[in-house]
Each structure stands twice: as C-alpha cells, then as structure tokens.
C-alpha cells in the first residue's frame, strides 16, 4: 500500500485516471481518512458511486479491496470468522486410533490427561478457523481497504459489534483472544439512509455525504465514462437528467442511470434528444411506471424549451 499521500490533488488526479471523477470534498475525505487513520462513513442516495469510491481508493492506494456486504441478520460468523466444528469433529474421529496409540503407554488417568493437555493447543488452532472478510482485513499481510457496504441494512447489534474494530482496529474472538490489525486498514462504510445509524458509530467515523452531482461534474463523468457520446447530446442529456431530479419522482435517477442511458443512446446512434427515442428509452433512467408516465408528460414541453434556446 502506498504510505505517502502528498496532497488532495494527487488523489483527485489518480481517481480521474481510473475514470472516477469526483468533487474535491470526496478526495479530501479520503485524504483525511488515510492520514488520520479514521474510518469514513459515506452516505448518499443510491447510485451516486459510493461503492465505486472504495474501489477507486483501493486502486489508488495499491491495496487489496476486501468487501463485506451487509444484510439483515448478518452476524459475526458471516462477517468475522466461523468455527469449523464439523472439521474439528472429523479430525477427532480420524485421529481416534492415533490418539489411542499415543495414550497407550500411559499408566494412569492423570498421565493421559496431561498428555492430552499438551495436544490441546492443536485442537484450538487456526486450522479450524474460517476467516471472513473482517478477519481477512485485520490479518492481511499488507494494509487493505475494507469496504463495509450498506451498513444500514445490518442489524443494530452488528453495528455495535463493529465499534471495537472501528475505533481500535482490533476484534475479540473468544477462542483465540484479541486479534489486532497487522496493518491498519482504510475502512469505508456506506449507507443508504434506510435507518438512522447510532451516534456511537457516527462519532468514530468521518462523515462524507455524496449528493447527486452538479451539472458540470455530471457532464465530466459522462464524458469520461462514455467518450463516444456526442458533446452536444451529452449536454442535453445531463440537462434533462438534472431537470428530472427537480421533479417529484418516486426514485430519482442517479449517475449510474445517466451512464446507462448515455451508453444506450450511443448504441442507438442518436445525435440529439428526439422525442420518440427519449420516450422509448426512458425506462433506463426511471425505474417505476409512475415516474415514467410523469416524465413522458414533461418531455414535450421540455424539448420545446430546449429547442428554443
């Protein structure tokens, strides 16, 4: 992993090189997180590139990305480690004869116990520990970027369980004791604001809110990701998306949807937003029937206005 980051600009440049165009606030948050060794809680509406940010950060820091997707009912055996009882039992069965042989020459119960005691360590070792993402991140030989995705979907207990990891980069495992991170990972948590996160969690993290991008930034993003799109069409498209976001929609179109639409228009060889084409491809941008209907109604007036300019 890269250990020295010279400036915020270096991050912005590297992100841009990877095709992740971001505002300065985003780069600054990553910079501060890396320098202050603090986790970052990234919030924002779906589809604004929260997960992409973690990928870009991992590529920039030349560190492996370890991802933990949260869901309701996620528990430590899925997130941290699982104890492989089955394997342990199987080993005991298979080794029964061997054990019998080893214990054959002891004459008293105490002596057998003592000999077994010496072996005990072998039965509570890493062999039977199945590491899950969090443990991977802590034991990784090089510092990693740990992405805890959609933390708001996990239960509150899981959130509390993460606190130790987030503040001290360590975790307690009953069978093994406390595992401290070999190298402090850069931790990114994302949330879609499905529920309010606890104050304790927020206090331990830096907080970054990614809003829908402004027109200029969005145009830049489209230009980088879909270079084949005609410049004039790009401007029209971005303006239309921005216009849609001002409407009272059930689900507002995000950047990912803008990009999908741009790609579709390239495939269709469109050179300007014409009514028929826009109406046919609207379902790439809007995901509910209600929104599509509303947008269809808005469209003619909007196109007319655009034509006048």
């Amino acid at each position: 992993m890269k250990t020295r980051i010279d400036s915020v600009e270096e991050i912005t440049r590297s992100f841009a090189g990877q095709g992740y165009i971001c505002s300065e606030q985003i780069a600054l948050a990553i910079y501060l997180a890396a320098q202050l060794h603090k986790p970052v809680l990234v919030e924002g509406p779906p589809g604004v590139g929260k997960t992409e940010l973690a990928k870009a950060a991992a590529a920039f820091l030349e560190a492996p990305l370890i991802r933990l997707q949260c869901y309701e009912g996620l528990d430590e055996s899925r997130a941290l480690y699982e104890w492989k009882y089955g394997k342990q039992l199987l080993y005991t069965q298979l080794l029964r004869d061997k054990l019998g042989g080893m214990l054959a020459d002891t004459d008293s119960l105490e002596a057998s116990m003592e000999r077994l005691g010496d072996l005990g360590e072998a039965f509570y070792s890493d062999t039977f520990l199945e590491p899950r993402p969090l443990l991977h991140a802590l034991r990784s030989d090089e510092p990693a970027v740990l992405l805890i995705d959609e933390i708001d979907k996990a239960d509150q207990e899981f959130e509390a369980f993460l606190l130790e990891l987030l503040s001290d980069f360590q975790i307690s495992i009953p069978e093994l004791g406390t595992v401290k991170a070999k190298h402090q990972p850069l931790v990114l948590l994302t949330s879609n604001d499905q529920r309010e996160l606890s104050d304790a969690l927020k206090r331990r993290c830096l907080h970054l809110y990614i809003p829908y991008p402004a027109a200029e930034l969005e145009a830049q993003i489209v230009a980088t990701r879909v270079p084949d799109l005609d410049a004039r069409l790009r401007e029209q498209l971005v303006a239309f998306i921005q216009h849609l976001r001002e409407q009272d929609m059930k689900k507002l179109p995000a950047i990912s949807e803008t990009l999908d639409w741009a790609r579709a228009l390239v495939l269709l060889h469109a050179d300007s937003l014409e009514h028929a084409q826009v109406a046919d491809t609207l379902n790439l941008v809007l995901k509910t029937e209600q929104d599509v209907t509303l947008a269809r109604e808005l469209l003619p007036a909007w196109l007319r206005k655009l034509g006048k300019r």
Partner: protein
Amino acid sequence: MPTRRLSEFVQALRGAGLRISPDEASQAMDAAALVGYARRQRFHDALAVTLVKQQQDRPAFEETFARFFAAEDSGVDPSGDMEPAMPAPAADPASAQTPEEQQAEALLASTPEQLQQRMAQAAAEMDFTQMEVITQQGLYSRRLLMNMGMGAVDDRVLQLDQGNPSQQARAEQLRQWRARVREQAAGQVRRQFLLHGVGKGRALREQTLRAVPFRDLREFRDVQALVRKMARRLASLHQRRMKTSRRGMLDARRTMVASIRHDGVPAKLFWRRRPPRKTRVMVICDVSSSVSDAARFLLQFLYAMNDVLPRVRSFAFASRFDEITDDFSRYSPEVAVGQVLDRLSGSGTDYAEMFRAFQARCERELDAHTTVIILGDARNNYLPDGAETLQAIRRRVKQVWWLNPESRGRWNSGDAVMDRYLPHCRLARQCATLNDLERVVDSLLGALD
C-alpha cells in the same frame, strides 16, 4: 489560527444544536492542521467531514461557519468592523502626573490598530460563553471597556471638566472618542452573543417550548422542528428495543438437522423468529376548538414516527366524525392538520355519537392487537355519554387510552364526564404540553412491544 479559535467554533456549533464529542473536536483540529488554513473551501470541507455527522445538521453548520469565520474575511482582526481612521484626540502626556492619568494618556496615544488589538485582547480574557439572554449585552460591554482600561479615561474626562476652558474643550473631544469606542465594544459583544448566547438561548427556549401548553404553542415558529426531533429520538430508542425483543424460542427441528453434520453435537443453535407484531393503533381526536391544538401535535408526533408505528389509523370528530388517515398519508403533517381542521372543526361535540360512528366503521377491524387512543376533553354538552359503547369497543381491543388536555382537577367540572369513561380506559393521562406528549408516546411504544 490557534486551537482556541477552533474550540470556540466547536462551542458555537454545539450552541447551534450539533452534538460534538471532545474526540470529534480533536479530530477536527488534526484535520485542520493537516489541510492548513490558507484555502478556505478546503478548510471548510475538512471541518465539515469531521464535525457534521448527519445531513440534517448541515444547514446549521454552514450558517455557523459563515458567521464565525466571516470576521476573518473582512479584515485582519476577528474583532471586526472598527474604522481604521478613527480620529483619536491628540494625547497630552505632559499633563499627566499620577499613574492613572498616564495610563489614560497612553490609551489615548495608541493608534486605532493598537486600540483594536487591545480590545481583542481584553475580549479574549473574558468568558463570553456564559452569555444567555440578549439583555446581558450591556453588562458585558461595560466589563469589556473596564478590562481595556477605559476607566482611567473616564476619570480623566471628569478631571478635565473641572479645569480651564481649553481643558474643557479637550474633555468634550474625549467624550466623543469614548462614545465611539463604546459603540465598538458593544458591536464586539453583540457578535459574541450571536455565537454563544444564541445557542444557549436555543436550549433554554427548547426547555420552555416543551413545558408550554399546546394552546400557546402555535405562536412559536420552530415547534415543528422540535416535534420532529423529539419523535426521531423516541423512534430510534424504540427501534432498538423492538429488535432485541423479537428473538423467540429455540428452533429444535433446525438445530437437530444441523447437528447431524456434527455427529449429533448441536454445534449451532437456531432460534425461531417471532412473527412481526401486528399491532395497530387507532387514534380518535376531538378537533373542536377547545382541544384542536393538542390534536394537532398528537397527530404530528404520531406520523413523524412512521418507522416504528407503521399502522396508525386516525379519526377526527367535532360536529362530524371522519377518518383522516388519508390526509396524513398524502400530505405533510403540517398541511394535513390544517386541512382536517378546516373540514371537520366546529363546536358541539357528541361523544356518544362519535363512539357509535367509530364502532360502525371499524368494528370488524378491532382485534386483540389494536390500541385505541382517544384525545378529548370529555365535554359532552350535557348529552348522553355513551359509555356503554366505549365499553363494547374496549372489549374487542387490547386497550383504550384516554388523553385529556385539561388538568386532572377539571376532568369532571361543568359538562365534562371523564368519570363515566375512566373505568373503560387502561390509562388516562393529562396531555397538555410536549413533555406530556413525549411521555405518552414513549409508554405507548413500550406497551406495544
């Protein structure tokens, strides 16, 4: 920028209602040290990343930041708008004999910049964080002037007044100069008040708002925000309680099946999840003029808690009885309340009629998971009370609660007949202030789990 200035900023943010722990404050300082102060936008962003943990605090942060660091932008000195070319009357050091007089002359001899600096120093030595109400400003600016050593100048003016005409003329000059310095001191104090006092005042105000009767509450502007805040707090508190209480008994079948892999050793236990509760809340609000204020806040509160109380049906009555759930699901609570009041409000409540109408409309949906909350003053205009209908309703539901906006002593005065209804209510409380309301909703959520 010294650490002190930043911690003052944190203080001001706390005053504006943000919750900032010492740990976060020290993070902010680390971050500020890292990015430097030269580029304002970046400095601003660094503070925002470390101090603002929820998006709804953002406007308060922006406002405080702008106010707090505005002074820095306009000039070199944070103390603000002192005109640089303030005409100080010529000093006359030769005439000063006693140390006090020399001190006064020294103050007079200082350049405007020096004077400004002196004021800033004096201000820095004072603790403005204790300022709470606007009337304290005079006291604080007097203290500030004293700390600057202006007391000596006052004496000098008095002394010169006694002297010959030329000395008297100089005294007049000094008076004008002093008046101007006073103005500046007052300005300085006003700025400090805006930073610290406003926040303190807000906390004080919130306390007051919570204890004011609903009837007077409508006059205040930021009540909506307070109601939402209280509701959010309660909601997050109960969300947690709901989760933990949901785990049920051991699922023996799944545990056994899983244990086969491990030679019959139940290595992993499975638990039955208790099915999600089917509780339903039905609220009936009296919206006649005497009670409508309380109804407004009760409904706002309940609908602000949508995440934990998903199935609320609400009804209102005054001269007519009608369901108002739709108004609330379609419009924001503020709008909905107004609509309902327009549609139904009037005088002449008839509780017996209301019970009958409610029973006729909802009887099929009343079950053991339903809680009925009635908000009203039980003033029945000397009509039959209809307690037997309430009893019939009570038999079909889990519980009936009665909230009365009047104090307990008046529950049976005049045409009020609370006594007739009380036997059928599991709980009856006075509900006249936001504090009462919060307590009621809190115990409601507790009783639902």
